[in-house]
């Protein structure tokens, strides 16, 4: 099983050219059912309507394969 740090690195590489994460925004990881879900959080000013994250990457925790990439709801 890959480490959390590796999962984040894989996620960063996976979104290049597809989604631009918000600069300095936090990155959250969760391990659910042998899958890492790496979320590039989007921080919005109060009152702003927009997506909750710039990108969310699902990674197989064993193989490190990227299973899915989603943008936020916008």
């Amino acid at each position, binding site marked *: 099983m890959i480490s959390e740090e590796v999962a984040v690195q894989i996620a960063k590489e996976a979104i290049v050219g597809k989604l*631009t994460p918000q600069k300095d925004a936090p990155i959250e990881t969760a391990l659910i059912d042998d899958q890492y879900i790496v979320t590039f959080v989007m921080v919005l000013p109060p009152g702003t*309507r*927009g997506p909750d994250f*710039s990108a969310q990457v699902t990674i197989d925790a064993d193989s490190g394969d990227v299973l899915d990439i989603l*943008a936020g709801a916008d």
Partner: protein
Amino acid sequence: MSDHATQHINRNPDIVEANLEQENSPEQTNSALFAPGFGATGDNPRQRVTTSNILSLQKTIGNRAVTRLLEKNQSSYLRPQLSHTVPLISRAFASGPDLFFKRGEAGFNFDTKPQTRTEGDEDEAAATEGEGDWNAPIEDEADTRAELKAGQRAEGDEDEAAATEGEGDWNAPIEDEADTRAEGTLENSGRKSEIRRVSATGTIQRVTFPRYAAIVAAMRSDFDADWQATLAATTKTSRREQGFWVQWDSSSKAYSVTGRAIAPTVDNATGATINLPNKPADAGNVYTIASFHTHTPTANRAVGRPVGPSGADISADATDNVAGVVYDYVEAKGGNIPAGHPLNSRAQLYSSRDQRT
């Protein structure tokens, strides 16, 4: 007895001076002189009568005896010579909504029309001690009318509101809050006073704001127009959101659009956001009740996304205390639409918040 006074004044100018001081000193209004023999001892046949020595007399010879002495000797010499011609004795007082009058007091005319009273009148009122300011206006609290926003609704209203889901509760009951106005008559005979508390009716008008379904029903064409405009603004490399505030007139029940906003255009890799202008303040019967904005197509994007309101959308509507309406695609699978989702795919309205409260 007046001779006593004269003698005394002539013999003892200090006391005269003291009395003159009393005239100008409200704090000492309970000081006076006793006639000879009235509880006096020693060389000084007269002594200053004060509250304390009256109390002392009351303790030694009793209340009744002191009262009888004072009643029998109406001369000012035997009675405390008060500096104020009229003592400050309450003739009426208020307790909650009730007014109480001293038995026998008369002269208050409840039919007196209120007059404008300014701050300076306080001094004037003080200058007429003993003459109750019966013409002072009675605060007309009964006319106070509060219009409560839905957020101030009483408990229990939720059920009622729920029963009218999708329909503004236009016929919400107007509650009577019994403001009270004291009314009454007093006979001028000085022997009878009567207080009657009569309940006057005040009203609190309650406004229940339209729910999401009612807003959609009324504003559908405006929402559709903005969605179409959003699709039309989408290019191969860019897209953007747009939206507006929905206002509602509680009197005419009419809806209107205000604060239209076109969000900045973003490329396909960047999250699209929208900042509506500041929520318009309520004005009269017109309330800002909802926000509306569109989401953007993924037709030219490399990734898919969830559909419907985001957490930020929901949070913003909660902060703004408005219902929230979002125009977005119908989900394709698992709550998402994929990358390259056809531009004119089926879309729908989502609720990010049901109702302004």
